[in-house]
């Protein structure tokens, strides 16, 4: 031991009294018991958020595996990321290497030249970590810096990765003024960064109803209707929201990233809230019904959200539109999807819900007739989920429900239950899906645990990706490990909805794109003549390239 080490040891050891108050052990054990009942992490939480989003909680059980990528024998080849963004000629995203013991996950940056095969970055220096319970954490790229952002308490946090230097930078930390959480968890669902400006779309997830801690596996919402399906239940329950018919509060925020500029915060008391989007050199924030929006702008408390290139000067790009939900931008052109999805009152009227602005005039909006694309349906069988614009054209992602009447509330009880079995190294999980009985048995066939209702998306299911192409299911004292591939092939909950992609060269004329069945998870990215999408199957993301039609100039 060197003299220097002795002096350091002495300095620490001679430190004076540090008063620290710890809870009694009884409180720790009580906290642990409560958490065991309620808490869940990683994909359970992400699944719950997906449910709250109302974006098709379950897949259709697609069977087309064309283009799907699994981890190969090459250790540098990774599973597809759940979210990614364009950086020059490549796509960059991240996967998580989680340690179930520590409830912490290392962020593994990955890149792909084709959206199909993903390889990890050889990171210089220490890796960044995140607590998987904050998922989803969207990723965006601005210049050579990738941001992986989330919301904790009243702050927007983004880990930043220098793609050129392959090293993690100091994280970004923005306080969000005016965030009203009402005891709910707030989750970032979309992040936009441009030239020092940051915008984030957030929503409340994890728990949807005050005073009811039941894990929720289904959530549906409209302006005057909220319904939940508790995990294991076969029917949705309509819920009365005390004092207001509206679901939990939605928030969108815009702030200065680097210079600690005053934040503009837009809070929206109604579903589905406002969405940030990228314009050339700046950021836009879509708005919905003006009467429902409250703007907390430190410089002007009444100005509506809109577009900005500097965080200070804002313009309103929407003119007469008051039901803006999603916005895509390319140059001066804008494409807007309204809140309620495509709709028409009768067969002799156009199917409305999508608007195109061909130039800079904020009042020059063209109503897109979606009738040729969607046909006529009663009720509201489609829901807009995402819009993307670029030099190649425009892509619309929407959900189609097979049920009639109030299609958002699927008739779960009529789903056929199918047996499944997935075998890991030491344990075998078997039962019936989508939410039947299930058992976990060890190698000797001894019963370890049984479920009356097993749901892969149950937020109380402690299921964690553990790297190396494995998942770990923690039950009581047991940690059962399964391969991603086995889990995926065995457990694909059936559903009553389908994700659909449509494409337009000019924003007005639309056609459907061929898409593997399943839930589209994360953003859609236009890259090298294709839409790159992630389809989630049994919680495992698979990326696909969906070729875009070539422009016919004749």
């Amino acid at each position: 031991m060197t003299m220097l080490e002795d002096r350091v040891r002495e300095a620490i050891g001679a430190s004076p009294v540090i008063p620290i108050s710890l809870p009694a052990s009884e409180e720790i054990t009580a906290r642990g018991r409560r958490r065991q009942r309620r808490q869940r992490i990683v994909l359970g939480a992400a699944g719950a958020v997906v449910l709250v989003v109302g974006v098709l909680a379950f897949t259709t059980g697609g069977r087309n595996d064309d283009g799907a990528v699994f981890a190969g024998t090459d250790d540098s080849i990774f599973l597809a990321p759940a979210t990614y963004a364009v950086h020059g000629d490549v796509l960059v995203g991240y996967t998580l290497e989680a340690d179930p013991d520590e409830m912490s996950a290392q962020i593994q940056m990955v890149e792909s030249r084709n959206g199909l095969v993903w390889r990890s970055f050889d990171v210089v220096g220490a890796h960044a970590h995140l607590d998987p319970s904050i998922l989803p954490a969207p990723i965006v790229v601005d210049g050579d810096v990738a941001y992986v952002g989330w919301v904790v308490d009243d702050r927007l946090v983004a880990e930043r990765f220098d793609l050129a230097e392959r090293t993690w930078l100091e994280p970004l930390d923005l306080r969000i003024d005016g965030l009203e959480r009402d005891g709910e968890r707030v989750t970032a669902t979309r992040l936009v960064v441009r030239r020092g400006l940051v915008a984030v779309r957030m929503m409340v997830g994890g728990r949807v109803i005050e005073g009811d801690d039941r894990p929720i596996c289904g959530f549906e919402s409209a302006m005057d209707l909220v319904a939940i399906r508790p995990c294991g239940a076969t029917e949705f329950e309509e819920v009365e929201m005390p004092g207001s018919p509206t679901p939990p509060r939605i928030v969108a925020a815009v702030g200065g990233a680097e210079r600690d500029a005053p934040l503009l915060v837009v809070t929206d008391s109604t579903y589905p809230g406002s969405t940030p989007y990228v314009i050339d050199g700046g950021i836009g924030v879509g708005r919905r019904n003006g009467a429902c929006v409250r703007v907390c702008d430190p410089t002007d408390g009444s100005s509506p959200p809109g577009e900005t290139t500097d965080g200070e000067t804002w313009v309103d790009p929407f003119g007469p539109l008051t039901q803006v939900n999603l916005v895509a931008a390319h140059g001066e052109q804008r494409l807007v999807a309204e809140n309620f999805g495509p709709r028409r009152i009768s067969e002799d009227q156009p199917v409305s819900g999508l608007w195109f602005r061909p130039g800079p005039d904020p009042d020059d909006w063209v109503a897109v007739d979606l009738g040729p694309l969607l046909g006529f349906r009663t009720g509201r069988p489609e829901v807009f989920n995402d819009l993307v614009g670029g030099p190649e054209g425009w892509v619309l992602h929407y959900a189609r429900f097979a049920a009639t009447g109030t299609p958002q509330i699927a008739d779960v009880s009529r789903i056929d239950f199918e047996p499944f079995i997935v075998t890991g190294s030491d344990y075998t999980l078997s039962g019936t899906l989508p939410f039947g009985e299930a058992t976990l048995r060890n190698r000797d066939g001894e019963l370890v645990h049984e479920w009356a209702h097993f749901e892969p998306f149950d937020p109380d299911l402690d299921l964690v990706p553990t790297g190396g192409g494995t998942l770990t299911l923690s039950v009581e004292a047991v940690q059962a490990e399964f391969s991603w591939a086995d889990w995926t092939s065995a457990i694909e909950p059936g559903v009553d909805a389908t994700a659909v992609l449509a494409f337009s060269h000019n924003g007005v004329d639309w056609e459907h794109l061929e898409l593997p069945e399943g839930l589209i998870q994360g953003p859609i990215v236009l890259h090298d003549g294709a839409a790159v999408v992630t389809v989630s199957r049994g919680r495992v993301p698979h990326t696909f390239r969906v070729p875009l039609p070539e422009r016919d100039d004749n």
Partner: protein
Amino acid sequence: MELAVEATTPPPSTLEVTIGNGDFEGFYDRHAPAVAQALAVTLGDPELAADATAEAMTRAWQRWSKVGGYDNPTAWVYRVGLNWARSWHRRRRRERERPVALGPDRVESEVRDDRLDAALASLSVDHRAVVVCRLHLDWSVGETADALGIRPGTVKSRLARALAELRPHAESMEEDD
């Protein structure tokens, strides 16, 4: 009821006890103060250290059938507590804003030369954690590597860099002596 801890920095041996599948509450009562103290030194924030200890101990309770069988469960708790404290940026911000040395109440400051303490507090948390594990808790390189989830070579290099940063301060103290 709260467990009030008014302890001086504990002797390292209190963190080296190897236990089997004993009861969690006994483990907690015996080791939570020491873990909290080590985290306070590492994080420079007693309040954060208390929160991190409580969180890590809660997680230990949830996995006690496994964690309790580890050779050094306190190392697991220390690591989880440290990771938890660092995982939230709010807490990291607090670390940056309040990089206090070893505690808020420096009752001996008038008689002690605290230049080395201040230098220690100026280290990154990564480096401070290695210093605490190796020199305060007296864990081996391997134990420190396991506790912090890093390679043994990283333990050595971080300790070397930390000591290199501390050396000028120690030398200036020696010159004054």
